């Protein structure tokens, strides 16, 4: 990716952000009536758990935020400005908690789960895929179809299966949550183990079902690479197997794999969100589910914006890293 590629990615990020914000702003208004206003009115009718003052404070803030008396384009500009400052306003369900506070609590869980599992699955899957091409034997021969099946199934269904067998039938692992309900969060080893213990099933379901995706992609790339002229020339020079596998095979097959990682990011995020829901894991996915259930629109929009931004950011980082791996696309090259 050259300089204009990076520039394009930046413009793209801006467009994505702008598009998402615009969608968030206009959709509720286009769909006839204002679901947010309706929701507030509904809260006002039922009273619910919220005190009268809190409710009126919320309505006041909503009115102030959107300046309902202002013309719609002015409301829209105000909204865009808020989004640019990442100000998502207040949660409707947990007023006066700000959406940012809720996201801040959930984000570390999601990032921890997603980054580790994606890295493990990416590295292990890529290696397995490459190895399956290099050494065709009974083990790789049976492993690959199995991984293909897992790759076809959405993460959360694998999660349901794991809950059923390992959590419910065998009772080896907890079936949900980020840590045991009776334990207080603290920075010690016990708590860390507790967290890891609870993360093992969700992590396993993500790794199990995404490892096949990477293995398959890598297998395809290795087959392509094996047919390249430089492999033939390498063989004709009598290079060692080790060098052929790592410096020639994997090194070249890895390049498109990094591109695939960028493209599959959305899939990974989607999968992880649903896995969190299945496991009631205290991350963004579960928060999103709660917000959807509670018609907490501001929180839904906030989470969507954060996830979209994260994806854009990671894609940008991958674009910046790629030239380091591939000398043909060094930065600034024509």
């Amino acid at each position, binding site marked *: 990716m050259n300089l204009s590629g990076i520039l394009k990615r930046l413009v793209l990020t801006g467009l994505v952000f702008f598009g*998402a914000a615009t969608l968030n702003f206009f959709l509720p208004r286009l769909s006839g009536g204002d679901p947010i206003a309706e929701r507030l009115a509904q809260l006002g009718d039922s009273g619910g758990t919220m005190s009268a003052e809190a409710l009126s404070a919320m309505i006041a803030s909503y009115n102030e935020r959107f300046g309902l008396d202002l013309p719609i384009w002015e409301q829209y500009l105000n909204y865009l400005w808020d989004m640019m400052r990442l100000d998502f306003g207040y949660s409707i369900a947990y007023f006066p908690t700000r959406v940012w506070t809720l996201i801040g609590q959930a984000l570390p869980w999601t990032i921890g789960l997603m980054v580790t599992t994606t890295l493990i699955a990416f590295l292990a899957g890529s290696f397995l895929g490459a190895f399956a091409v290099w050494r065709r034997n009974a083990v790789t021969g049976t492993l690959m179809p199995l991984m293909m099946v897992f790759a076809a199934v959405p993460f959360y269904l694998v999660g349901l299966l794991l*809950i059923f067998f390992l959590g419910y039938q065998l009772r080896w692992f907890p079936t949900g949550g980020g840590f045991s309900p009776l334990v207080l969060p603290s920075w010690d080893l016990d708590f860390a183990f507790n967290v890891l213990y609870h993360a093992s099933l969700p992590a396993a379901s993500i790794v199990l079902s995404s490892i096949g995706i990477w293995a398959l992609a890598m297998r395809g790339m290795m087959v392509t690479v094996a047919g390249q002229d430089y492999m033939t020339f390498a063989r004709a020079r009598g290079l060692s197997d080790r060098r052929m596998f790592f410096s020639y095979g994997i090194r070249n097959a890895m390049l498109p794999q990094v591109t695939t990682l960028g493209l599959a990011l959305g899939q990974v995020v989607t999968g992880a969100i649903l896995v969190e829901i299945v496991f009631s894991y205290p991350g963004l996915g579960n928060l999103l589910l709660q917000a959807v259930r509670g018609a907490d629109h501001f929180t839904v929009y906030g989470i969507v914006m954060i996830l979209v931004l994260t994806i854009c950011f990671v894609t940008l980082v991958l674009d910046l890293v790629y030239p380091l791996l591939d000398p043909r696309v060094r930065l600034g090259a024509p």
Partner: protein
Amino acid sequence: MTEGHASAGGPLPECPRPEAHIVTLGTTPAHERRFQARLLGYCRRNPAFPIGLGILGFLVAFAGLGRLLWPVELAQPLSSTPYMAPNVENPFGTDTQGRDVLAVTIAGTWLTMRTGIIAAALGTALGSALGFASGYFGGWVDNVVNWIVDVLLTVPAILILVVIAASIPGQLSSLSMAFIISLLAWRRPTRQVRSQVLVMRNMGYVDMARLSGMSGFEIIVRELVPNLLPYLVAVFVLAVSASILAAVGLQAMGLGPQNEPTLGMTVYWMMYYSAFLQGMWWWIVPPVFVIILLFVGFYMLSSGLDEFANPRLRQDRR
């Protein structure tokens, strides 16, 4: 270099002689074989194709025959006694709200497949049209389409769909859900068709067609589309699978039609009522099993269609 021999086109030796340059062993060349034999050969080379077709055929039969043989009305709440383990009256048991799980699974399979096929058909049609236009004509049409697809592809479908579904007041029917999903289902078909057209556009026969006085639209319809039909089939299969993925995902988040027994809603209810903690395995296993079969079936079918769909792979076997 083997290809050079195979396509040399000269008459093959009439009887096999061991010292001959090319020796025909028994079977006749591919293009002379009859359709069935070719199909058989294809299945042997691509076992994923018959497996995928078999799985999906089984599901279609299950949903289709099931609707005829089993009262689907039992999929409504309170139509049976709730919390029943499998028994004579309810072979798959009932859920916490008195739905018959067998009826739910039959109706859900039907609804889910219908949603996927409608969304994918709309998405593939729109995507192909855009892909052909943008790939063939290039210029600003291509730039605009390409940028829009780029922007939309950056964001996972489910996030956009969550915003749409959450912002629309009232209940969604599974049909309107199909339309919402089709709003995004065209992105990949557009990209896939465009990249194929970009390659085909440079083929000599497109230039020949221009020299024969054909207009751009005619070239797309008469020269490009026929060659891309197999590919479009594969694109459609992938789109169905992706649409079902989106539909089930949305439903599992509770964003689907609450009063229709779709497979995704069933997953939502079983999580909502903590079916696991109550030990209601019969509620969980059938729908989850069917969803997994659906995805595996579509996956197998689409990877089995690879050789059929990919013009390059086919050309090598001319």
